C-alpha cells in the first residue's frame, strides 16, 4: 500500500477507487502522517478494517490531514468515523468520542478539525451525519514507519471496536 498521500477505496469487492469520487453512506477517515511513527496509527487501523469489511458500503479515506472539500462527501453519509493519533493520555490508550458539529474550528480554514468539518457540512447542506472520533495516544512521533510497542498492542482492540460500530451501522444498508 502506498503509505503517503490521499488514498480512498470502497471496501466492497476490492474496488480501488483512488481515482473515483464515490459518495458512500459510511465514511471511515484515517488521518495522520504514516512516516511519523505513531502518528500513522490511523492508517494502520483503516488498513486493517478495509481488509475485513467485505460487502459493507464503507468508503475508506486515508490522508495526511483533513481538508474542507471532505465536507462535500458528508452529503450522502449517515455515519462518519474519524481515526487519529493523540498526544494526551497514556501511550496506547485509545478513546472513543461522539462528535457534535459546531465545535472547535482550527485556526486555518484549509485544515479543519473533525468537528469543524461537521459544522461546515451542516452549513453547506443543512445537516451533518452522525460522527465518531477514535484517538490512540502515541508516544513517538519521530521519523519512522514503526509503531511504539504500546500503540502496536492497542491496534487490535481499536480495530475491533470500530469494526463493530461500522457493522452495526451498515446492517441492512444496500450495497451498490
Amino acid at each position, binding site marked *: 500500500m502506498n503509505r503517503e*498521500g490521499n488514498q480512498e477505496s470502497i471496501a466492497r469487492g476490492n474496488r480501488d477507487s483512488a*481515482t*473515483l*469520487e464515490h459518495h458512500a453512506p459510511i465514511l471511515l477517515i484515517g488521518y495522520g502522517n504514516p512516516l511519523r511513527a505513531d502518528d500513522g496509527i490511523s492508517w494502520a487501523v483503516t488498513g486493517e478494517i478495509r481488509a475485513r469489511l467485505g460487502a459493507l458500503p464503507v468508503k475508506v479515506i486515508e490522508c495526511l490531514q483533513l481538508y474542507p*472539500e471532505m*465536507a*462535500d462527501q458528508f452529503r450522502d453519509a449517515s455515519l462518519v468515523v474519524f481515526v487519529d493519533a493523540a498526544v494526551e493520555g497514556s501511550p496506547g490508550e485509545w478513546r472513543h468520542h461522539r462528535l457534535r458539529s459546531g465545535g472547535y474550528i482550527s485556526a486555518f*480554514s484549509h485544515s479543519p478539525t473533525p468537528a469543524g468539518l461537521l459544522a*461546515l457540512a451542516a452549513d*453547506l447542506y443543512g445537516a451533518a451525519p452522525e460522527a465518531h472520533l477514535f484517538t490512540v495516544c502515541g508516544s513517538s512521533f519521530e521519523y519512522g514507519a514503526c509503531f511504539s510497542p504500546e500503540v502496536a498492542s492497542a491496534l487490535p482492540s481499536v480495530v475491533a471496536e470500530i469494526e463493530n460500530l461500522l457493522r452495526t451501522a451498515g446492517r441492512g444498508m444496500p450495497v451498490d
Partner: protein
Amino acid sequence: MTRTIVIDPVTRLEGHAKITLQTNEQGEVESARFHVTQLRGFEKFCEGRPFYEMPTLMSRICGICPVSHLITSAKACDAILAVRIPPAAAKLRRILNLAQIIQSHALSFFYLSAPDLLLGMEADPADRNLFGVVRANPELGRGGVRLRQFGQQIIQILGGKKIHPGWVIPGGVSEALSIEKRDQILGMIPEALSITQKTLRWFKIKFESFREEIRTFANFPSLFMGLVTGTERPGYYEGKIRFTDSTGKIVADNLDPAKYPEFMGEEVEPSTFLKSPYYKPRGYPDGIYRVGPLARLNLSERCGTPLADQEWAEFRSLERGAVLSSFHYHYARLIEILHAIERIHALLEDSEILGTQVRASASINNEEGIGASEAPRGTLFHHYRVNEQGLITWANLIIATGHNNLAMNRGLLQVARHYVHGEKLTDGMLNRVEAVIRAFDPCLSCSTHAAGQMAIHVRLINPAGELLDQVGRP
C-alpha cells in the same frame, strides 16, 4: 516622531513573512517592506541527487501547487534528455497543469479572498473565513468547495493523488489516459462550468462596491510578463516569454524561456530571503514587472476558448491599456478558471488524448536543462545542471511569488499610505494591508486567514522601542 509598524508573522506556509511600515513625524507611512524570513534551501539540498528524482523532489516545495513544480521540473529534465515528448503526454500534462490552476485559484478566491469580498474589509475577523462565507452565502460556499474539488479530482484521476502526485516524469507521463477516466472528467465539467459562470456574474456586480480598493490596491504602471503561445494566447504549459507595458504595448516578445538569464536579473535584498527578479534592460528596481492571472490576461489578445474570450474582452474594457489594479487579480482568476475548464474539455475531446505512447526515453544528452510553465501565481522556471552521471551539480528556481516581490512591496506602500494613519491601528486598516498581499496570492497568503482569530500580529513601536499599540494575537 517616526514610528515603525511591524506585522509579524504574516505567514506559516512556504516560509514565514512579516511586514514593516515606517511612519514619519506626521504619522504618514514613508516606507513599506515585505520580508520573507525563512530560507527553504531546495536549490542547495537537491545537489548530488539524480536528475530523474527532481520532479518528485521539487513537487515537495509546495502543498498548494505541487503540480506546477512537478511539470516544470519534468520539462527541465526533458531538456537534459533532449527529447520531444509524445503528443499525448504533452496534452495530458496540459490538462494536469490546468487542473492545478483551477484548484489553486478556487482556493485563493473562495477560501481566502471571498471572506473580504463577501463580508467586507471591516467585518468581524471571527467571520472572515470560509465558514463565514458559507454561513453568509451557502451557494457561493458550496460552489467554492465543489470547484476546488473538481480541480483536485482531476489531479487525483491523472496523478493518483490530490497532493504531491507523481505520474509526470522526465520524457512524458507514466501512464496513458483510459476511456473511463476521460469520461469521468468529462462528466464533471458541466457543473464546474456552471459554478464558475455564476460566480463571475456575482463578482462583476460585487466589485463595484470596492472602488476605493480597486483604486489603491497596487494600482500602478508596471511591466507584465508571462508565457504566450500562438502569438496571442496565454501559454500555460509552454510558449515564449512576452513583456508588455502599462499601455498594453509589447516591450519584448518571442523570448526563449531557456535564455531567461539574458533578460531577467535576480536581486537579493538583505531584509528578505525572497529574491527580486527584474527585467534586465530596465535595471533594478526599475525593471519591476507583474506575473500571474492579471499579467496573463494583459499580455494576451484573447484566451482562446469561447466563453473565456467573452469575459476577457469585458475584463480588458475596464481600462484603455492594461488593467493595472492588482485588486483585479481576483477577477482574472475567475476568467482563468473558466478558460481552464473549457480548455480541459477541448483537450479531452481530442482523439490524440487517449494515445498510448506517453513517454520518450533517452540518456543524458545535455548537461543543462531549463523548464518553464505558468503556475497559478505566474511564470515558474526550473534550471538544472548535471554531471556525466546525471547528478545535479547546481539548481536555480525562480518562483512566481518572487517575480511579484517588487510589485508586492510597491503595492504594500500604496495601500499603507492610503489606509494607515496616526498611532491607532484598526482591524479594517490592517486587513487591507494583508488583502493587498492576498490579491497577489503568494503561497503564504493562506495562513493570513484564520478562523476566529487573525493570523497576524501587528505592533506599533516608536523609535525608542516602546510599544504604542498592538492588534491581533497576543
